[in-house]
C-alpha cells in the first residue's frame, strides 16, 4: 500500500487529490523500459501499438488527469515527435491506466523503434475521496 506515504496536496479545492510521479526510459526498439524511479505504480513495456499499461498500487475514486513530458536528446526527427492519450482507465477497480503514445507526423500509434531512447516523465493526478 502506498497510502501510508500520502501527503495532502495544498491549494486544491478538490478534496484528497493525490499526485503520483515517476519516469522511465525506452531502452531498445522493442518497447522495453528501464525500471527507474516511480512510487505508487508500476509500468509495463510499450506494445506494438504504442500502448503502455500503468498499474497503480492502490485503488482510487477517480482519475483527475495524466500528464506526460517526453525528453528526447537525439537530433530532432519529426517522425519521433510524440504525444500521449489515455486509452482507458480503471483506477477504481483493477487499478490500471492504459496510455497510448501517438506519432504526430504519422498520425497513428508511435512505433516501438521511434520511442527508443526517449525518457518519459509522468504525473498522475488521482482523487482519493468520494466527497
Amino acid at each position, binding site marked *: 500500500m502506498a497510502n501510508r506515504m500520502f501527503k495532502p496536496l495544498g491549494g486544491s479545492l478538490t478534496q484528497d487529490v493525490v499526485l503520483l510521479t515517476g519516469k522511465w526510459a525506452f531502452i531498445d526498439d522493442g518497447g522495453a523500459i528501464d525500471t527507474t524511479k516511480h512510487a505508487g505504480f508500476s509500468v509495463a513495456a510499450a506494445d506494438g501499438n504504442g500502448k503502455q499499461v500503468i498499474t497503480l498500487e492502490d485503488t482510487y475514486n477517480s482519475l483527475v488527469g495524466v500528464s*506526460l513530458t517526453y*525528453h528526447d536528446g*537525439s537530433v530532432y526527427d519529426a517522425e519521433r515527435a510524440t504525444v500521449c492519450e489515455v486509452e482507458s482507465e480503471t483506477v477504481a477497480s483493477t487499478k490500471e491506466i492504459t496510455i497510448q503514445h501517438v506519432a*504526430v507526423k504519422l498520425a497513428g500509434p508511435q512505433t516501438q523503434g521511434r520511442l527508443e531512447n526517449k525518457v518519459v516523465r509522468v504525473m498522475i493526478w488521482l482523487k482519493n475521496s468520494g466527497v
Partner: protein
Amino acid sequence: MLCAQWTFGTDGAVAASDMDKEGLKLGPLYGTDGNQGVYFGRHKNFPYIPSEIVSHYDRSDWYNDILGLEITFKSDGSPSSTERVGFETNILAVDRPIATPFVSYAPVLSIQYFSLDDGATFTNSDMTGITAHMVLWMKNSSV
C-alpha cells in the same frame, strides 16, 4: 512548482519584462530549430548565457530532476496550422554533478517546439504572437 507566462515577439523574442521570473530565466526561441532555453536561478540578474563559472555557480538553483512540464498555449482565437504547438524537452541538466560540482554550465532545460500537424519544428517566426503559460514541477530531493 515554477511558473512563467510570456508571449513570443518578433523572431521568437521574449520581452525583458517576461524573462525574469521567480526562479527562472527565459531565453528566446532561436532561429529555425524550435529550441528555447530555460535557466534556473533566484536572482533577477541571473545570466542566461553564462560567461563566468563563479557567477552562475552562485546564482543557480540546482534540483534533483523535473517531475513534469506543462505548457498551455494561447493563440489569437483563430488557430491555424502554425499555431498547434507540441513540445518535448531535448536538453535537461538541472542536477549538479556530484563528482564535478564546479561545472561550466548553468542548470538548464531546453524545450523543443514542433507542429502538431506534421511534427515539423517551429521557427521563431511561427511562434510570434503565441502566449505560453508554463508550469514546471521540480523535484528537490533525492529520496
